[in-house]
Structure formats: structure tokens, C-alpha cells
């Protein structure tokens, strides 16, 4: 009887240790979500991570798949982010300038209050689509590390150019922004 109890105890302990070890291996192998931004920086061909989110500019939802066939500038922002205010007019200008060429700017409002975001959109006269991601569900998949960040998606749904950290209108980002827009449109200039 005691031998059986001991063997059962040992088996339970072994199973427990194996389960913990498995968890550790899984976490190391799959748990560190680098996101699309790191793959893009490593020169890999990366599809724009999918999302389907509530729209703030009108009723309904918008998914990245709905924009297949269009050049897309995806801008992650929040109303409490100061550089986001500086770049908002530039994004709006880009949208107005290239809209007829099939370019869409999509704002993804992250970790924010809906009402604050709508006030921001009104204040800066944003007319491009804006989706709401209060929970920050897109951050990990896209590899967003701060706000604002901007990505470029070509007409086939692949990420192109480079991830822009910080406002798109500042000196160090201006060239990368123009190149990203051109690559998304399919007219690398």
C-alpha cells in the first residue's frame, strides 16, 4: 500500500514538473510575440496583421482585409499622445492628396477613451477612417512599441517600407514616410 502511495506521489510530482517545463518551453518558443514590425525590420515579407475593429468615424467595423487592393497607411495613435497631435495634419494631407490614387490612411486609436478620440478627430479635421482599439489588441501583433507609429501596406496586403516610430513630420522620419507612401502606392520614387 505504502509503495503504491509513494509511486503515485512520484508520478504526480513528475507530471507536475513536466507540465511546468512544457510551459517554459512553450513560452520561450512561442510566447515572445515579436510582432510584424520586427519581421519587417529583419527583411522578411510580412502580411499586414489582421484586425477588425469598431469605427470611430462612422458606425460599423473596419477590417484590414476590407482594404485589399488599396495602398494603406496605418497610423497607431492616442489622443493623450503629444507627437500624435503634431503629425495629424500631415496624415490628413496625405489622405487628401492620394485618395484618388487608391490610398487610405487608417488611424488605430489605442488605449484611449472613445470620447477623447472623437474630440481629437474633430479638432484636427480628420476625415480618414479611424478604428478604436481601447484594449490594445493590435499592439502585440503589429509590434507597436510606442505612440505614434506608422506602417505602410501595399495593394496586395503586405507591409512595405519601414515602421516609423514617432511623428511622421519630424526631420528624421520625413524621407521614410514619403518612401513608405510611394511603396504602398506601388510607385517607388
Amino acid at each position, binding site marked *: *500500500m*505504502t509503495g503504491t*502511495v*509513494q509511486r*503515485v*506521489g512520484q508520478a*504526480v510530482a513528475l507530471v507536475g514538473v513536466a507540465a511546468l517545463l512544457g510551459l517554459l518551453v512553450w513560452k520561450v518558443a512561442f510566447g515572445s510575440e515579436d510582432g510584424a514590425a520586427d519581421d519587417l525590420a529583419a527583411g522578411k515579407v510580412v502580411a499586414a496583421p489582421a484586425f477588425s475593429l469598431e469605427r470611430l468615424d462612422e458606425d460599423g467595423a473596419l477590417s484590414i482585409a476590407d482594404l485589399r487592393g488599396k495602398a494603406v497607411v496605418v497610423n497607431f495613435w*492616442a489622443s*493623450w*499622445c*503629444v507627437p500624435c497631435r503634431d503629425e495629424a495634419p500631415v496624415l490628413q494631407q496625405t489622405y487628401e492628396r492620394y485618395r484618388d490614387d487608391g490610398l487610405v490612411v487608417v488611424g488605430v486609436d489605442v*488605449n*484611449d*477613451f*472613445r470620447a*477623447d478620440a472623437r474630440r481629437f478627430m474633430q479638432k484636427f479635421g480628420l476625415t480618414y477612417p479611424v478604428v478604436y482599439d*481601447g*484594449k*490594445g*489588441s493590435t499592439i502585440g501583433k503589429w509590434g507597436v512599441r510606442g505612440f505614434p507609429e506608422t506602417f505602410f501596406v501595399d495593394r496586395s496586403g503586405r507591409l512595405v517600407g519601414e515602421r516609423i516610430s514617432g511623428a511622421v513630420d519630424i526631420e528624421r522620419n520625413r524621407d521614410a514616410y514619403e518612401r513608405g507612401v510611394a511603396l504602398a502606392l506601388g510607385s517607388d520614387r
Partner: protein
Amino acid sequence: MRSLPVVVAVALALCAPAAAAPNPADLEAELVCPTCDTTLDQSNAPVAQRMKQIIRQHIAAGWTEAEIKADLVDQFGPGVLAEPPKSGFDLLAWLLPLGLLAAGAVGVGIVAWGWSHRRGTAGEDAAPPLDPELERRLDAELERYEA
């Protein structure tokens, strides 16, 4: 005279203390800043400051603690709560550690019982009765030695 109970009820209702307004400091300790993963009272991140402001506005507008938390969960998701809710799937976060503790206690009990039981048996086995012939010879030797 018949209106006396009504008068008393109205007087009691007027004298009854209003439900206490939520304490902003308590709420800030129970809610998490979504960009820095610390509680609001530990954070000066812009979004945390805005959340603190909104909490105060809601309190001033007469919202209850539950209403304020529900609003913030609606905006930022359940991750904004420092403690997981005690319902649905999140209940597991409360029950699992208790279950594991109980299972551990039962396991330790079983192992301890097994050890003590084995020791008891081993104690009995350690002193087998002597062979009568050997015992007789041992007694004889002892008597001779003492003489």
C-alpha cells in the same frame, strides 16, 4: 395619528446618510494603467493621468464604484482591473490557486501518512521474537555471568 408612520418614514429617509461616494484613491489602487501595467496610483503615464481625471469626473457626477469600473472595462477591456472578476472564466484565477493549495495539502498528507505507516511497520519488523532455544541459552549465559 394615522399619518404618524408616514411622517416617521419620511423623517428617517431624510436623516438616512447618503451612500458613500467612491474614494478615488481606492479606485486608483484597483485599476491598471494600460500602457505601463502598474496600478493608476503608481503611474504618471499620460493615459493614467487621464484615467484619474475621468474617475474624479464620474465620482463628481454621482457614479458608483461599479459603474466607474464598468465604464473603464468597456473602454480598455477587463485587463484594466487589478484583480480579475470573480465570475465566468476569470473565476479560475481565484479558484485555481486555492485548488492547487488544497491538492498540495492532500498530497503532503498522503505522503506523510505513507511514511509514518511504513515506519510503524518497520518498527514491528525490527524485533522478531527470539528462537526459544536461543532465548534459553541466552538466559543461562546471563545467569552464569551474574553468578
